[in-house]
């Protein structure tokens, strides 16, 4: 699935190209100041990339897609990657290295179209030290071979960043073995089963039609032994996982579906060997191989994984790989794994604190929303303890670490037992509950039939006993659940709802309690919450000035303001960003300031009206702002009572403060309807790390029955879920961010709501695109329908088994009956499961999006 922003970027790129958009990235160009070879560019960064590509004969990049580039907003210094030359870090990241060459697989999130694949695979034209590059589009990865003697690892990373493909390096992702061999083994197993199935069927055909008398007894003998020889690798290698699973479940004193399956497999193979050895016939080798082949296909279908998504991410995945350390010699970039207690680290605006520490210098204003969900940043004084996971908002600070990364406040959450238990064991799944009864029944029937024939015709007793076991092999049963769940998983993936595995469908069907997080899940910070409060409305021209200035900054508040204004971009001169304070620049001859109140007032040369407002996002509702016009002394910051202001950005034009943008968290669209839909069927609860200022509003939304809890720490959330489970509830937790990680993990179904698919999300069972949140009620209804489809599939396969077992118990089972009955039952269950699930999705109003997904 292509990333949302990149989708919109490429489509908007195509639209704006005709209107003179940037030749590289397609964004609108403010003027013609950046032009080269008759092409105009929006910024210096895009022009640089174009000239670099042109000089090296890579113009074809622009022929493959219109405006395929990515706008480079911040040119990162090469020093930023210096830590990659540290041998310890390099060893973790490199796949392979010797004296002359090295290979590394880098995650490049900016890969989004065929032109990217082409450019990256032609990277060797940009630098003689780069060899072959192989892109894996669905993983957004590039395997790069390079000569460390000619280009250092850090230089390679800097080069990639310079052309717009900045590698994303996080601690959790590095140093992990790639699970390629498991998938390869599955393919080999299927291929060998298919080979056996096809070739044995060919040799068995004469026997089906009674042609063996024509060929004489030696043909029967040859075909029998050849079949047995070809079946052996199928039974041992292809079906190996079933034997292992059955053995494992028996050791656990549990009966899973694999137990009757391997009972059937063993019965069929041993009967076949006996028949061939005693010259009775060719055996059932064709049916056996076909059965294993179908089972493996079903398993392959169920094992749908999404390369771009990680469902089991621990806290390390959220941390950057490096941090700036202050040493007597100056500042240096150091890998987090090398960080020691007592090190002084430098954090700039927006950077994450990787270990618990003590504030040494600078004005700290820490946003703990990542850890606690509390949306208000906390101002901290020097000497105060800071927790890992906090994000600095404002200027540069210096922190002395007091604990190793692995023992920090955030990491302790992952030491909770909820994270240690294996959640994916399916001993209690619908299929296995059913198979327990099934296995007992089959063994009972087989024994009863054997005993009956013992008295009637002792020679037939053993044959009937094995026949029952053969025909009762629950192939169709084993396919019903994987096919249904796998189909459901694929349908949901097209709706940007990604399930960790197919079993999640079943767990979702059993949910009776839903716990929701507030900040980031039900509410969001988007353009809708931006409101200008000032002496009057801003004119269209003024909106253009403000928007053009804010457009050049990557600060979240700037991005929100840019989105909320409709304007045509104008050239900005003298742009300057003061981290944690604000941005300034001149647009159309007007000097514009955007930023915190203190900073704007100071820059505009207006006396600061007394109050301390250290945080940019300090609590301000913005009421009464008009009074401050021209440096009035009224203090608008006292007006904190007005709603859930997330912050305010002040505006000054030509040395005069004219108002502020109030940035509020707003309820996501259609959330009220969703809660009304869910309220009828499920018990609801709201957990928030935020304070209680919105309690009344949410109580009204959720109704009187729902439990609302505020000021919840991550551990509180986890315990709340566990208490519900101890009361026998099946709980679904819907949350986002690290502060919900424990609760998501503890819940029976953890749903992570993300703004953008493919970026970091906490460990969960379901990753859901935030825009699809209103569909949650329908998704739950769909999962209940899918569970009904599985049950119906069981009934159908039980009917086949009943027919087969009746034939077998009566002593009439022949290879041809077996060869017909088994595929027919399997195929009909496959068709039913896929068809009924698709129909259930349509009836439930879950129609896929019109445009096809590029890469799932």
């Amino acid at each position, binding site marked *: 699935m292509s990333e949302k922003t990149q989708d919109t970027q490429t489509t908007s790129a195509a639209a704006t190209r005709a209107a003179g958009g940037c030749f590289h990235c397609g964004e609108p160009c403010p003027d013609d100041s950046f032009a080269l070879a008759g092409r105009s560019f929006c910024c210096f960064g895009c022009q640089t990339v174009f000239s670099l590509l042109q000089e090296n004969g890579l113009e*074809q990049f622009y022929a*493959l897609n219109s405006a395929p580039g990515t706008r480079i907003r911040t040119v990162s210094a090469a020093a930023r990657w210096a830590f990659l030359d540290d041998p310890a870090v390099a060893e973790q990241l490199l*796949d*392979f*290295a*010797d004296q*002359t*060459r*090295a*290979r590394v*697989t880098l995650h490049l999130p900016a890969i989004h179209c*065929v032109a990217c*694949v*082409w450019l990256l*695979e*032609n990277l*060797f034209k940009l630098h*003689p*030290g*780069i*060899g*072959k*590059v*192989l*892109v*894996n*589009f*669905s*993983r957004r990865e590039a*395997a790069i*071979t*390079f*000569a460390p003697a000619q280009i250092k690892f850090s230089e390679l990373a800097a080069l990639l960043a310079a052309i717009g493909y900045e590698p994303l390096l996080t601690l959790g992702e590095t140093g992990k073995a790639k699970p*390629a061999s498991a*998938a*390869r083994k599955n*393919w*080999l197993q299927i*291929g*060998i089963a*298919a*080979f056996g199935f*096809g*070739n044995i069927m*060919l*040799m068995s055909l004469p026997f089906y039609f009674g042609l063996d008398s024509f*060929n*004489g007894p030696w*043909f029967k003998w*040859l075909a029998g032994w*050849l079949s047995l020889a070809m079946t052996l690798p199928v039974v041992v290698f292809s079906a190996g996982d079933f034997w292992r699973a059955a053995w494992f479940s028996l050791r656990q004193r549990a009966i899973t579906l694999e137990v009757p399956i391997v009972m059937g497999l063993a019965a069929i193979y041993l009967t076949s060997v006996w028949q061939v050895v005693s010259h009775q016939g060719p055996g059932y080798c064709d049916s056996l191989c076909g059965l294993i082949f179908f089972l493996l296909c079903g398993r392959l279908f169920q094992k749908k994984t999404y390369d771009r998504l990680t469902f089991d991410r621990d806290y390390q995945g959220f941390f950057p790989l490096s941090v700036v350390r202050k040493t007597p010699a100056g500042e240096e970039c150091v890998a987090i794994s090398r960080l020691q207690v007592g090190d002084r680290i430098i954090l700039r605006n927006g950077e994450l604190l990787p270990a618990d520490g003590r504030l040494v210098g600078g004005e700290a204003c820490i946003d703990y929303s990542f850890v606690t969900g509390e949306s208000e940043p906390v101002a901290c004084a020097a000497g105060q303890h800071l927790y890992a996971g906090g994000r600095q908002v404002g200027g540069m600070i210096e922190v002395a670490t007091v604990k190793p990364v692995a023992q920090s406040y955030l990491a302790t959450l992952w030491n909770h037992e909820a994270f240690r238990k294996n959640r994916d064991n399916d001993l209690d799944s619908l299929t296995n509950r059913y198979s327990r009864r099934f296995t007992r029944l089959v063994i009972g029937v087989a024994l009863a039939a054997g005993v009956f024939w013992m008295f009637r015709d002792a020679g037939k007793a053993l044959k009937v006993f094995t026949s029952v076991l053969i025909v009762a092999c629950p192939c169709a049963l084993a396919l019903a659940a994987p096919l249904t769940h796998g189909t459901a998983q694929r349908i949901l993936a097209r709706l940007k709802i990604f399930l960790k595995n197919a079993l999640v469908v079943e767990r979702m069907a059993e949910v009776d309690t839903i716990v929701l997080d507030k900040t980031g899940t039900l509410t969001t910070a988007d353009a809708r919450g931006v409101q200008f409060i000032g002496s009057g409305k801003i004119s269209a021209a003024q909106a253009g000035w403000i928007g053009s200035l804010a457009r050049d900054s990557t600060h979240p508040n700037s991005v929100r303001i840019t989105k909320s204004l409709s304007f045509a971009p104008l050239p900005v001169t003298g742009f300057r960003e003061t981290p944690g304070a604000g941005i300034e620049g001149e647009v159309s001859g007007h000097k514009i300031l955007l930023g915190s109140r203190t900073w704007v007032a100071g820059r505009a040369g207006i006396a600061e009206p007394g109050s301390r407002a250290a945080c940019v996002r300090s609590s301000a509702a913005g009421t009464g702002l008009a009074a401050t016009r021209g440096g009035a002394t009224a203090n608008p910051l006292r007006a904190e009572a007005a709603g859930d202001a997330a912050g305010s950005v002040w505006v000054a034009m030509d040395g005069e403060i004219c108002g502020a943008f109030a940035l509020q968290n707003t309820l996501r669209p259609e959330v009220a309807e969703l809660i009304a839909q869910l309220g009828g069927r499920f018990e609801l609860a709201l957990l928030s790390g935020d304070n209680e200022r919105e309690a009344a509003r949410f109580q009204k939304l959720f109704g009187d029955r729902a439990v609302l809890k505020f000021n919840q720490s991550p551990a509180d959330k986890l315990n709340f879920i566990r208490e519900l489970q101890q009361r026998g509830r099946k709980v679904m937790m819907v949350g986002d961010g690290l502060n919900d990680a424990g609760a998501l993990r503890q819940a029976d179904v953890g749903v992570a709501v993300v703004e953008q698919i493919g970026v970091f999300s906490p460990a969960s069972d379901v990753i859901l695109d935030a825009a699809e949140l209103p569909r949650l009620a329908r998704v739950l209804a769909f999962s209940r329908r899918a569970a009904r489809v599985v049950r119906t599939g069981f009934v159908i396969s039980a009917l086949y088994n009943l027919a087969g077992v009746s034939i077998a118990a009566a002593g009439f089972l022949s290879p041809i009956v077996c060869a017909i009955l088994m595929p027919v039952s399997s195929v009909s269950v496959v068709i039913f499961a896929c068809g009924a699930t698709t129909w259930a999705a349509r009836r439930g109003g879950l129609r896929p999006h019109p445009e096809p997904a590029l*890469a799932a």
Partner: protein
Amino acid sequence: MSVVVLLIVASLAVGLVFLVAFIWSVRSGQYEDTLTPAMRVLLDDAPVPTHLPTAGGDAARSPAPEKQKRGR
């Protein structure tokens, strides 16, 4: 009669050729990524850097042709 034996041997040999081709294609990593090669087909000149030998491992081998047909 012996013609049947001949046919069995011939058919098995053909089947085995495909099986070996399939095993080779899986082991060379052609089933790891089924999306990017489809995009690469659209590009005119396949990148062939010759100045630096490819570092070891399967993933770095040349872009593979289409899937082999499995044994019958």
